[in-house]
């Protein structure tokens, strides 16, 4: 499968699922906690649908009405690539800030 670029909402969801399988509400609360972003229900399920279609996450069987989702190997790889690129940008930005503006 070709490498998939991810960003924004998708990165938040994949980062949350990197910890383990979660259903919609658990995802919402976890993302709110670690990223201070509250994903609206429609937006969350649009992204879940797209990520599932891309094979980056998969739905698990569920005994109740809340269906959990988990990261696939392709999803883990896409998330790692994305976060590595983000870290490179963050490292460069922070080092330039320190050099010119000093440490906070």
């Amino acid at each position, binding site marked *: 499968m070709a490498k998939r670029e991810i960003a924004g909402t998708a990165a938040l969801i994949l980062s949350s699922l990197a910890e383990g399988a979660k*259903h919609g509400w658990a995802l919402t609360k976890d993302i709110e906690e670690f990223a201070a972003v509250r994903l*609206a229900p429609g937006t*969350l399920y649009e992204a879940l649908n797209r990520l599932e279609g891309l094979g980056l996450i998969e739905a698990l069987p569920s005994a109740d009405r809340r269906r959990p989702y988990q990261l696939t190997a392709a999803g883990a790889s896409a998330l790692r690539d994305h976060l590595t690129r983000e870290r490179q940008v963050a490292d460069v930005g922070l080092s330039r800030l320190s050099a010119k503006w000093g440490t906070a």
Partner: protein
Amino acid sequence: MSVDEKRVRRLIRWYPRAWRQRYGDEFAELLLADIAERPRSWSRAFDVARSGAAARLGLGGVVHSLPSHERAGARLAALVCAGSVFMLFGAAIWAQLAIGWQWSRPSAPATSAAIVLMSCLLGLCLALALVAALPVVWAVAARSAAGRGRDLVVPFALFLAGGVVAVIGARHFAAGWPGTGGHPWSHQHLLPGRLAAFAWAGTLSITSYWAHPGALLRFPADELLWMAASPVALVAAVAGGARTIRRLGLSRRVLRFELALARIASGAMIVFLAATCSWIVSGGTGPRNLFDVGAIDVAAVAAMAAALVVAWRAGSDASDALGQ
């Protein structure tokens, strides 16, 4: 059933049936938890409405997890909806410009060139739509003859009813067409006069008069009724047609043929939009300011651009699904 559960059921109705079957239960649980924490939220209601409408247009929904030819069919249906919206606004603008042309040529050469180009492209799109409809109508007839057309009855009836009302109404009200100027073709029932009159009457509802209720109330009652009823008929025809395409399960061969036509139509729409923008920029005076650009024209061009983006995305996704 609790009040919250009733609210959740109402919210989930924004989504199409296939989406509700796949995600309905888990989405309802999420909404119930969200409502328990934030009982009133306009942003949540807006988000669900926006997302549900996008799913109905085939821009989200469950199409990603459908088999490839079903996904292509769903995207083709979305493309038909977006293309119809584009052509509806395009026809409304063209019909207005054609009225001015009937009285005299516009002073700006760019406007004259834009009108001629728009006329040719509108004709091309109409011809493409007719050619594209043939395999669909054939597939409907074949399914019905084989006794497997029960699920097509409602959408196809909706398409026919909306289409018949739109055509009969437009033909009736075309008699009031204002384009009866000095052009030698007027009163002779020749193109483009008759076609322009038909397009003008069919798109009477796209007008800035809605912002001027005083002027609107002086319209004849039957014309006002038509301005309110014609959008309903057009929406019914387009929605019925799109639903029919989705339920038909067209073969890969037919889908490839339809996509090839859609690519030509998309190219024509891009040029049509460029011609419209050329008129917006060049303007040019005409009799009774018939070539002047108003806010409604700019809004129509914005709607056409948005429809073109949706059509383009749907076409690209359909191509991906068919492995093209």
